[in-house]
């Protein structure tokens, strides 16, 4: 029997019980739709995390002053005063895999412009800082090495700060007051939005490190050093080299705890990536369960159908259908059911993805690979769950089947 004839018979048999076929398909429709939507959701989330990590800067290594144990009392991170600008210079000189490094020390202060004011973080750093973090300037530009040498009063504003102090006016060249000191605005950073944890990354101002240390805080130690490695694989080696160097410089004996922390953002990125992958897998497997339930529905209906049509099967065998013919006939019915359900399910999944994107503003990716997989998988469900009923039909004894009322 040729494929066209088989399909024609299958479609006719299915359209005979339209309501039943539709309800059976519904299981697959919901299953495939759910898989498509959740995989899309998961992949969207994964992409978002990846984008965020990319925006944090590539190959980034973060060295912060660590906790210290003083007379049995653990003091929190940042409590030590041992991390200094000379450490940064030593890292740059002695760790070959480090391309750039910049110091970081911060304070909080009231920033005032005319009649507007804003309470924000004040970070002291070097000009390289923005490059290492992959931050770009919306207006104006960076302060210079010369500004750092001479501890001049210049400031780069975060987008939130500029919005609150100046609104739509151009702040470049204007003067703002940080605490009691006047600073000239040289640049405004491009808005970066919220971080993965919901922090406003644009709420802050940046001044030369020397200016902060000498004129605002009066402290000569650093809270952190940011460094960038020449490549991502190199960043792992650099992490170890920096640890060894700083232990040596801070005269920490073997067995003693570090008074600093070295974190590699590649690790963080990998972790975040991993967790969103796990989430995708979890969502997809939950949705996959409903697909299996749909498959069981198909199997159930096919078994009913085989019983109902026992006599028909007997007739077909008597007039010359082979076991293979009967098997193919019923298998094609279940595959037509599941495949149609799969295709409708894809439409349903894409439609719900688009709806979620529009309503919640989430990022959803509907990949062609997921759709192809859904088609293949729903077909496989049809074959897998249709096989047992079809085999049952093929194995019927024609004499018994013809007698069946």
């Amino acid at each position, binding site marked *: *029997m*040729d494929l066209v*004839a088989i399909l024609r018979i299958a479609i006719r048999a299915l359209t*005979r019980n339209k309501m039943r076929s539709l309800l059976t398909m519904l299981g697959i429709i919901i299953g495939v739709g759910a898989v498509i939507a959740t995989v899309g959701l998961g992949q969207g989330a994964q992409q978002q995390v990846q984008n965020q990590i990319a925006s944090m800067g590539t190959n980034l290594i973060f060295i912060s002053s660590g906790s210290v144990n003083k007379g049995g009392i653990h003091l929190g991170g940042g409590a030590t005063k041992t991390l200094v600008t000379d450490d940064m210079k030593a890292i740059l000189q002695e760790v070959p895999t480090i391309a750039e490094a910049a110091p970081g020390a911060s304070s909080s202060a009231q920033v005032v412009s005319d009649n507007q004011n804003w309470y924000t973080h004040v970070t002291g750093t070097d000009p390289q800082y923005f490059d290492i973090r992959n931050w770009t300037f919306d207006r104006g530009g960076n302060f210079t090495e010369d500004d750092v040498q001479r501890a001049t009063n210049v400031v780069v504003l975060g987008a939130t700060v500029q919005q609150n102090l100046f609104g739509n006016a151009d702040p470049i060249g204007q003067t703002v007051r940080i605490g009691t000191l006047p600073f000239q605005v040289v640049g405004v950073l491009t808005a970066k939005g919220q971080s993965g944890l919901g922090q406003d990354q644009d709420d802050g101002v940046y001044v030369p490190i020397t200016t902060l240390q000498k004129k605002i805080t009066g402290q000569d130690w650093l809270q952190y050093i940011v460094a960038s490695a020449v490549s991502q694989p190199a960043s792992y080696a650099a992490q170890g080299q920096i640890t060894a160097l700083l232990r040596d410089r801070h005269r920490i004996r073997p067995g003693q705890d570090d008074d600093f922390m070295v974190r590699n953002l590649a690790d963080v990125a990998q972790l975040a990536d991993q967790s969103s992958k796990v989430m995708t897998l979890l969502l997809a497997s939950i949705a996959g369960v409903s697909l299996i339930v749909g498959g069981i529905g198909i199997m159930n209906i096919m078994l009913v159908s085989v019983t109902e049509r026992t*006599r*028909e099967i*007997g*007739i*077909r*065998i*008597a*007039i*010359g*259908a*082979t*076991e*293979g*013919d009967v098997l193919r006939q019923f298998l094609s019915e279940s595959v037509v059911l599941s495949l149609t359900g799969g295709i409708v399910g894809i439409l349903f999944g894409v439609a719900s993805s688009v709806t979620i994107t529009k309503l919640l503003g989430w990022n959803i990716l509907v990949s062609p690979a997921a759709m192809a997989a859904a088609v293949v998988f729903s077909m496989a469900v049809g074959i897998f769950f249709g096989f047992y009923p079809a085999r049952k039909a093929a194995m019927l004894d*024609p*004499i018994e089947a*013809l007698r069946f009322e």
Partner: protein
Amino acid sequence: MATLAQVEFNENPVVMTQAVPVIAVEDVHKFYQLGETKVHALRGVDLKVEPGEFVAIMGSSGSGKSTFMNMLGCLDKPSSGHYFLEGTDVSQLDKKALAAIRNRKLGFVFQGFNLLSRTTALENVELPTLYAKMDKEQRLERAKEVLKLVGLGERLDHFPSQLSGGQQQRVAIARALVNRPSILLADEPTGNLDSRTSVEIMQIFQALNDQGLTIVLVTHEPDVAQFARRIVVFRDGKIRHDDPVRNRPRAADMLKSLPPIDED
């Protein structure tokens, strides 16, 4: 093409005596296991049917005639003994080969018609050709041809529910003939029909037989068996009588004497 009603009556059909018997059954036994008890349905049956014969098999229920018929139809295999169909020992063949034999060499007509409901007369008749791997034009042509032969050329698109019992049985006969079988096997073909319609069906059988088709018919009605050329009587799983029919009535003649019944 002439319908069978118009086919010339031939008193002496040509029977090629040298030819291989269409059916040769040798010492066939059949056992069934029904729960604890073992049923011995056929107890050593020998039968030869030559090409062009018209055999009626009679017997009460439980005589083994249905079992024998299922075996002739290759739906069942003998427990022991041999069944040669046109010289081939079909008791040795596998299921796939048997399906092919049922499809090409045998035509079935059942008591309950066994047509597929919600499938037109034409499609019902076309069904065996689907399994014979014929191309589409040939399938349609053959199906229309045999439907015309049984006098239903005008009702191709009717569903079984729109046809009378006699018409349904004629569709079933057309279906049995569509692959041009060597034998027509009919299991109580008139069991569900009134007497006039029964005679009409027998008229078709006689006409087909006159054209050379071998027919084996199972019936428990002596009136119906009379239309055959030979009557074989089964009892307790054995053949008790095997006699030619003398003074065989012609169904076509008999129809003239019966009062007409409105069928449609």
